[in-house]
């Protein structure tokens, strides 16, 4: 009895507030926009009775929005450019994050707790504020341009804010802890005698790094990359604050379809397709985690 209660309360909560809302998105993505409240047809007609009403409703569903989306250049470009931005910034985050994780794993043991806290601390700070901080730095009259101009490296201010470069910087900055922590966890567990063995067997330090350290931190690297890539793909805040008007990201397109164009069916279709794209990396990520658990256990 008590067990049933324990199971049912969170179960029903998630069914009602997670699954049902998603089914509504799916249903609206199969409907057509209309000048009505709510702004889409068909609607369930209660007068027909429940079952005939549902049958009639389902018979009117079509894939028109999906056809529209795949036929329109704008959406293709938005999905592709989101993928490109997510891939590039994940790679950049790895480039910045790996040396930090590596340094942490090699730091004296008594420093490590503090270093961990220093990596986690920004994560607890408001995401919005961390993105906002870069507006002041990257702007035409921003701190970075002021610095570079006064040093004399450049003659005219660089236009970084409102470009894709600013979006990359924003993603690397905000998601860095997600990259550093799993790699650090993998490196920290590594047995140093393996490196010594490699060097005894004639490896140089560099080749020992590539042949021993990198393969052994592979699961951490993969986990970190997915933890950055998955949220970056659907990112909204960073492209809308740091990106320019030509920065196309699917999260921004969805937002605008819904709030500016009030086209609920197209916004819903954009959401469903985004989810379909995300399923592949999510499954790969789960597999990597599974492998990690098996290795640990």
């Amino acid at each position, binding site marked *: 009895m008590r067990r049933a209660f324990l199971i049912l309360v969170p179960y029903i909560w998630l069914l009602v507030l997670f699954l049902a809302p998603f089914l509504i998105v799916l249903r609206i993505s199969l409907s057509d926009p209309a000048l009505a409240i709510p702004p889409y047809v068909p609607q369930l007609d209660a007068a027909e009775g429940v079952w005939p009403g549902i049958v009639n409703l389902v018979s009117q569903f079509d894939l028109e929005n999906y056809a529209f989306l795949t036929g329109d250049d704008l959406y293709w470009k938005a999905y592709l450019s989101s993928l490109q931005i997510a891939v590039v910034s994940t790679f950049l985050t790895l480039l910045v994050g790996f040396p930090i994780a590596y340094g942490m794993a090699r730091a004296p043991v008594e420093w490590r707790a503090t270093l961990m806290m220093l990596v986690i601390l920004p994560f607890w700070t408001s995401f919005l504020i961390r993105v906002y901080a870069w507006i002041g730095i990257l702007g035409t009259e921003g701190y970075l341009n002021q610095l570079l101009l006064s040093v004399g490296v450049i003659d005219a201010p660089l236009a970084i804010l409102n470009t894709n470069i600013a979006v990359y910087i924003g993603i690397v900055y905000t998601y860095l802890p997600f990259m550093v922590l799993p790699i650090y966890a993998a490196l920290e567990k590594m047995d140093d005698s393996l490196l010594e063995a490699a060097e005894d067997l004639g490896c140089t330090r560099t080749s020992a790094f590539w042949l021993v350290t990198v393969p052994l931190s592979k699961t951490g690297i993969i986990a970190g990359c997915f933890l950055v890539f998955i949220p970056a793909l659907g990112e909204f805040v960073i492209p809308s604050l740091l990106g320019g008007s030509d920065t196309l990201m699917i999260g921004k397109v969805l937002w605008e379809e819904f709030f500016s164009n009030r086209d609920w069916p197209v916004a819903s279709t954009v959401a469903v397709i985004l*989810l379909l794209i995300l399923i592949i990396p999510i499954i790969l990520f789960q597999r990597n985690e599974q492998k990690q658990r098996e290795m640990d256990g």
Partner: protein
Amino acid sequence: MRRFSWFNATSLTLGFAFLYLPMIILVIYSFNESRLVTVWAGFSTKWYGELLQNDAFLDAAWVTIKVGFWSSTIATVLGTMAAYVMVRGGRFFGRTVFSGMVYAPLVMPEVITGLSLLLFFIAIDLDRGVLTIVLAHTTFSMCYVSVVVSSRLVSFDKSLEEAALDLGCTPFDAFRSVTLPIIAPSVIAGWLLAFTLSLDDLVIASFASGPSSTTLPIKIFSAVRLGVTPEINALSTIMIGLVTVGVITASLVMKRNIARARLDEQRAAG
């Protein structure tokens, strides 16, 4: 032997400079006299004063704290229940669907979660306001709580619970007097995480809020779209300060508890 090389030292220095400089600049310039945020014109705390007189921000802060408190509290209860069911619940009908639903919100893009909840609230004709934001935040943060709590539940010895049951405890008593004290740190950590996520959330709150329930991130977002302002710098500084104090206190308390537990163990052993 681990060798902490110059390369390691440099990458840590540069890495942490990258992580912290933007926030440090923000904090410094919040004390700037000038309204031109990128030009230093002397020290002043006037923007803090203006911020405290800005009723719109204060109202939004109050809504945010209310939403954060309620959503994280409900999420902690639901998330702990979900974690317990997943780790100790054994088999039950629909278990796969259940664990799928617990993990899915963690990887779901915020825009999709927000859109689906908004369409759902409209479909059931629920007026958008504080209640709908609380419902939305509870739903995604309970999943984070359940991940945090279940990782603790997995690692602790089930035989302690069984011993309590053998000694005549009811399942509820066993949970309250054995399980709960052991998982308490992770439950508290889960609550803090849920609270922070709620305070921080812009996208889902924008979908779930109504005209009368603007949260602080929504307010900040609409202000910073127009550029950098000294008031937002001051507000950011206050928020960064609160988080820093909170995290440092929490980690000191945790360190002390671990040290105390170690001491107890040594005493028990001696």
